[in-house]
């Protein structure tokens, strides 16, 4: 990537983040809540896209990492009374460790096998949440008490159940994940990652340890997903098995495909459009997943590059 392209991407990202910062002053209450949820899901999707969009690995099991972060953070608060930052730290470590192990195993497979194996591991994760019900309270899940969602910050109390606080925490997390990915892509590692995506055999014959590079991105992706899960659990105060279900992995895929795989801001766009649409549709019909199905097929048939991917192809080749 040239320096000027990097500057353009950085500027665009900063503009979007600034817009999000201002948005909280104009949005009505419900939409602040929804936007918060969207930003957390966007972090999840950025993590998923890091793997799909930049190294070309399609995982069907990312709900596992989201749930790992969610439970690692939530359970350490619930059972051990960890402080919020400590719980968040635990979730990062846990999801990094999990993705390291899962990645080391699943990356031995390619293409369709990789998709199925990740799906199966995620299914095991989902069952594990149910099986260890003594800790997770199974399907019913756990609600974090209000007291656990506050922390002393010098003379003030930070209450992350508060709508505005929560919005800004989600915004910071989104900014951090976008920034992380942007700078990752700027450097050699990003170059190697996309090289693997475009031509794995060639990259290996240029002297790169392809497996290690893929594993590295897998861990980055899993950890970002885990961070999103932790944020979701702590900010919204509920831990449930539903977050580990197959459907969640599919949603990440859907958001990414819609926004544009391999684009920095695509995940955010995909999440915003899709979540808003689902919210409206659910007022009309219980069968709103029908629309998800249709969109998946339309995207894969006619717009495999998604919204930002198409824009990049037609008008803005500098887009990351």
């Amino acid at each position, binding site marked *: 990537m040239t320096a000027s392209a990097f500057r353009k991407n950085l500027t665009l990202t900063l503009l979007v983040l600034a817009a999000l910062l201002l948005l909280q002053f104009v949005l009505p209450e419900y939409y602040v809540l929804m936007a918060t949820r969207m930003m957390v899901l966007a972090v999840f999707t950025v993590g998923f896209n890091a793997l799909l969009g930049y190294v070309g690995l399609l995982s069907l099991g990312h709900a596992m990492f989201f749930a790992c972060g969610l439970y690692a953070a939530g359970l350490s608060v619930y059972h051990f009374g960890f402080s919020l930052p400590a719980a968040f730290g635990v979730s990062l470590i846990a999801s990094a460790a999990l993705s390291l192990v899962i990645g080391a195993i699943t990356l031995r497979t390619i293409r369709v096998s990789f998709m199925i194996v990740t799906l199966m591991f995620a299914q095991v994760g989902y069952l594990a949440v149910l099986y260890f*019900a003594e800790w997770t309270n*199974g399907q019913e899940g756990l609600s974090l008490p209000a007291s656990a969602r506050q922390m002393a910050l010098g003379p003030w109390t930070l209450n992350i159940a508060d709508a505005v606080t929560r919005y800004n925490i989600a915004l910071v997390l989104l900014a951090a994940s976008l920034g992380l990915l942007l700078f990752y892509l700027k450097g050699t590692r990003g170059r190697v990652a996309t090289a693997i995506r475009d031509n794995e055999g060639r990259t290996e014959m240029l002297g790169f340890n392809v497996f290690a590079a893929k594993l590295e991105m897998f861990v980055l992706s899993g950890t970002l997903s885990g961070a999103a899960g932790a944020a979701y659990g702590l900010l919204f105060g509920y831990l449930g098995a539903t977050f580990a279900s197959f459907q969640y992995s599919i949603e990440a895929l859907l958001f990414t495909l819609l926004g544009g795989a391999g684009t920095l801001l695509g995940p955010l766009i995909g999440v915003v459009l899709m979540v808003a649409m689902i919210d409206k549709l659910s007022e*009309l019909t219980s069968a709103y997943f029908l629309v998800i199905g249709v969109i998946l097929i339309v995207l894969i048939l006619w717009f495999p590059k998604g919204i930002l991917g198409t824009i990049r192809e037609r008008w803005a080749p500098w887009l990351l």
Partner: protein
Amino acid sequence: MHSKYNPLSLSMQRRTALKTLGGAAIALTSPAVLRPGFAQDGTIKLGAPMHRTGIGASYGRWYERTATAAVKLVNEMGGINGRKVEMIVEDDGTDPKRGTEVVEKFATQYKVDAIFGHLFSNVVAAAAPRAGELKVPYFICSEASLLGAGKLNRYTFQPGITDVRAQVQAMAPWIGSTIGKKVTMIFPDYNFGHDHRDFFTAAIKAQGGEVVAKIAVPPTETSFTRYFPQIPPSTEVIYHVMVGPAVLTFVKELGDYLGSKRPEIFGFIDSLEAVNFNTPQLGFLEGTYFWEAYPRYAQANQTEFDKFFREKVGVDANGASIADPKDISTYSHMFSCWETLFVIKQAMEMANYRGPEQKKDLVVAMESMTSFAEGKEHPQGAKQFNGKTHQVFGSQNISKVEGGKLKVVHRTKIEDGLYESPTDYTKMDL
């Protein structure tokens, strides 16, 4: 069984025919769905998150019908404090996460006055804390034993139906003294089933009985025969309580397995809610016992209130839809929606409730209630309300299957189910 779409119903009168249209039609065209902007000033808006889909769908459908009938009646009676009541329904997919989101949506987007209608305990457990945070009164129509255990909050009430703990406690003496003391329990392997397991084990022990086997079945299971060999030969009573789409399979396979040489069987009607008794494969249930909160079949001593309730909801004397006799209701649970709505009405009238800024008054009014008399508003029977635990207590029925129908053989007193709880939600901040 619960067919909603029946081509024959087209010939019936329009109103009933509309009622029997499929879930899609309800979902797509429900007049109960109001969007912001359509709501008139001065109406009382009630959010109704319903299990339209997911494993609670059979319940959700009848909950919605009952609630719709109750809202209609309230409006015919002049509304609440002269204000019209409007119900906004959204599907929660019987999913805790979606249930929580819907509660948020009711509270912040529709800005409803209160929320009611949740049944499944996992959904309640997830949604109640958010309702508390958002300070919106949240009325559950659930048997979950969460309130008494102190797990919920000041904004959550359970005024329509008795919780599992009280149900079990009230019936255990009868079971122990009448049908047997060695009990094998079969229950779904999640919190609702665990409540049954824990509370009944304690209750039967108090009667000098014991639970000889506890068979937990995953809620997603579709085939059950392989669990039955775990029933020990010493079993005198099989105690079953299953929910979800596979309940009928469960009962049928139990029948196949046991045949006529069966021990006594005591089941929670949950295992057969929305299921027609009149199929040859359920013949083995003849002579077995069921708990019913509210008898599905009109009894010989049917009250005028029960007649009234059945007529308004559109249910015949067999507990089936008047429009379609194959469409069996969830009679033993759905009355809770009806009664809850009238409790809300009563509390709002006590508080002279005018709008959302008076939510706290509504809560306080609720907590001041002590009892509800049997009547059109409370057709299931009289109830006691504990303002500290936000929990109601009523009578339970034990019915025997005779001639393919359920006949009540024992009705507990309200006092039988009362239990002490250290919980006092009135001490929590408003």
